[in-house]
């Protein structure tokens, strides 16, 4: 279980997130929503250790991971798919997968499984990731995250700027991954329909503070829209 308690974080002296608390169970999908600039990406970067927290605590499976470097958090079971379909643009698709699999005893099998899940990548294995389409790069980013055998997957707007058919595939993948019950997902998503369809719980972040939260069941959409003042 991933737990954020009163987390404050930001860039330099500028605090962007002011005491956010949320919990992601080990087998559920939690969606974090909010306007642009609300601090969603900042919070996710803090969870991964790419930004320092200035107050509060981040625990994973009951252990404080606030002081760990990002790669050590990955070793604990966190995986991160950043916003913007980022990949190692100068490495080929295959190298993007291999570089994560290197050093893992079952690395080869993990790469094969990732490619089975995203067969579209098979056609572009030798192409530099920087030359892939946005949809291919997003699938590659998720595939790379899955190779780390995560227990908690953190996705930052995975459907942003992606064509609808790939969005549907990504949605299917996320739901399929959590079906086994051994993977928690923290999802930042702008598409409210997709977000509430996929998630069990929602949080709304406004100006760096959690302004609303609840079950993502029926009626949640109206609550979210009200919380976001749309």
């Amino acid at each position, binding site marked *: 279980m991933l737990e954020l308690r009163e987390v404050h974080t930001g860039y330099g002296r500028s605090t962007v997130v002011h005491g956010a608390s949320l919990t992601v169970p080990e087998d559920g999908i939690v969606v974090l929503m909010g306007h642009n600039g609300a601090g969603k990406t900042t919070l996710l970067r803090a969870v991964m250790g*790419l930004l320092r927290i200035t107050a509060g605590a981040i625990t994973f499976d009951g252990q404080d991971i606030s002081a760990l470097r*990002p790669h050590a958090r990955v070793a604990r079971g966190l995986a991160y798919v*950043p916003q913007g379909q980022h990949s190692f643009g100068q490495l080929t698709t295959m190298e993007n997968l291999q*570089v*994560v699999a*290197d050093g893992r005893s079952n690395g080869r099998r993990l790469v094969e499984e990732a490619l089975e899940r995203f067969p579209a990548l098979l056609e572009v294995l030798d192409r530099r990731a*920087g030359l892939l389409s946005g949809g291919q790069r997003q699938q590659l980013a998720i595939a790379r*995250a899955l190779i780390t055998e995560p227990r908690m997957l953190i996705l930052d707007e995975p459907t942003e700027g992606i064509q609808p058919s790939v969005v549907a595939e990504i949605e299917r993948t996320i739901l399929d991954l959590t079906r086994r019950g051994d993977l928690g997902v923290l999802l930042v998503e702008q598409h409210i329909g997709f977000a509430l369809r996929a998630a069990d719980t929602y949080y709304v972040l406004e100006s760096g503070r959690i302004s609303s939260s609840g079950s993502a069941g029926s009626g949640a959409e109206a609550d979210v829209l009200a919380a976001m003042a749309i």
Partner: protein
Amino acid sequence: MDVVVSQIFTGLSTGSIMLLAATGLVLTFGQMGVINMAHGEFIMAGSYTAYVVQQATASAGASLLISLVLGFLVGGAMGVIIEITLLRHLYHRPLDTLLVTFGVGLVLQQVARDVFGAPAVNVRTPSWLSGSVEVLGAVVPRTRLFILVLALVCLAALAAALQYTALGRRTRAVMQSRDLAESSGISSRRVDLTTFFIGSGLAGVAGVALTLIGSTSSTVGQSYLINAFLVVVAGGLGQLRGALIAAFVLGLLQSFLEYSTTASVAQVLVFVVIVVFLQFRPQGLFSLKTRSLV
């Protein structure tokens, strides 16, 4: 005709020396972005390693081979120490890095003077590298041919390591995006350290090779440093094939300009050519093109 062939070989030889001095910099400066002004002193450390090994070894040939390995390790170890104690805390602060490494270079030069004395020392050339061979009518010293081959071997080995090994993939990943690499489970600190070890080690190898064509003093590395940086910049940051072409083009340019002018004028003209070239192509000979930001 003989003059042209002779100048071509002189140019290739000069280019290979520049290339050897620059190969480590392609990693540490080109890929990691560290402006390491002490790189020349790693070269110097390699040269003095060759000198020390020869004092303890009867055979000049065996001494050279041992020195090449030890020079790599000594240069690499110095790089590791500086990376851990200084550079690690200065990433993203290029001006501070430049000043600190410049200071470290001066300290290392003084240490060398204190330990080995101010006068230059010489390393004996193995008998199998003495003399010359005739190539297309031009007389080429064997030592120069050896350095040419060594530079190409070092470059090819580095290229192969970067392209085909797990460490190479990790290095390229970290150099492209430190955050993405870290959040993919790659320890960027470990990669930085290893990369700096190899880059600095290659400077040590260059230092050993340079003892074959000149004497060794505390400033031996400094004299090659500017040309090495020029090769990396003109070739395109982090681009091994760019460094290869830039080194030989600059070497040939210098050789032919020297023939028709003087060494000093030739060096100035080479600088002018590079300044003009970078005005039109600031990214150097080669740069990577991608659709994405990363």
